[in-house]
């Protein structure tokens, strides 16, 4: 899997594919546990919080598998993960506390791909900067741009997954991108130079 976006678009394609059998929890954890963790990391921006969220997602999957209808398994996991994350953020907004996590070590972001040697340093830095810029976005905008740009979901799919109106999806994606644009401008221009 070269990227998460490719992963989900391939999975979305399986919506029209032949029906699959309902996997066991062990199969879901073994084959998709890293996908859930990676998504959780993008959403929370912290290794510890990502472990916590991904773990809770896997526990929820254990009881929810009985209701799973074969189709897009990663889409289903994505829905559970983003909704659980969103619930937590709403809970945190109602019961504000100090942030639990400090800035993480960039070394924790370990891409599974293998970039070419000549651009690995530049793109490695860009990946870290993008992750940091994402982490600083308000969570509604972060969810919107992640689902659209990284997981390549359509506006309708995002609206259905998050229970948002289409206009809200459109607005949050744009505002998220506009904020990211401000933060990433020096790096994007540098990488293009």
């Amino acid at each position, binding site marked *: 899997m070269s*990227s998460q976006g490719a*992963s989900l678009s391939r999975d979305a394609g399986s919506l029209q594919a032949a029906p699959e059998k309902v996997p066991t929890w062990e199969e879901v954890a073994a084959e998709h546990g890293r996908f859930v963790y990676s998504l959780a990391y993008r959403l929370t921006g912290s290794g510890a919080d990502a*472990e916590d969220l991904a773990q809770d997602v896997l526990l929820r999957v254990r009881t929810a598998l009985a209701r799973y209808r074969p189709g897009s398994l990663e889409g289903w996991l994505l829905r559970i993960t983003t909704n659980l994350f969103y619930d937590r953020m709403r809970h945190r907004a109602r019961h504000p506390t100090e942030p639990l996590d400090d800035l993480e070590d960039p070394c*924790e972001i370990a891409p599974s791909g293998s970039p070419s040697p000549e651009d690995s340093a530049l793109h490695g830095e860009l990946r870290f900067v993008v992750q940091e810029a994402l982490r600083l976005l308000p969570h509604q905008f972060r969810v919107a741009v992640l689902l659209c740009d990284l997981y390549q979901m359509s*506006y309708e799919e995002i609206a259905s997954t998050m229970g948002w109106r289409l206009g809200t999806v459109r607005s949050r*994606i744009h505002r998220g991108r506009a904020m990211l*644009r401000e933060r990433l401008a020096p790096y994007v221009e540098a990488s293009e130079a």
Partner: protein
Amino acid sequence: MSERHPRGRELSSSLDGGLPRRRAEAVARHVETCPACARELAALRDVKSALASQQEVEPRPGWLRRVQEEVAAGTRPSSTSWIRVRLRLRLAAGIAAAAAGLVGVGLWLAPPPPAPVSFQDEVRQHLVQISNPLGDQTSYVVEARYP
């Protein structure tokens, strides 16, 4: 230049195929002839590309196996956030107990509060002399000291 400038979110949506066909065509025509909107669209496209190029993040080695083993064993995996919350609660309780102790010791060591002083005593403390040099009943000289 054709038509009005599209809104920012229309430019964003045009990248995602999220506009109705006729509006998408109008935005595309406008961008072809408007350098400002073309720059804006290019910047938004760069952001989208930067996000799309993010790769999967690996968990710490052993994390997934630990979750699998604990779930298989029927024990709920420990939540790192809850551990941190519990530690914070313990720390807060410790600080509160220490503060209460300090207040208690302070009250015990502090001198007792002075007894209330009447108004007359207060006046007497400052009064030096009242005289009636003219001998009448309307002229008095009052000498008092002030702290």
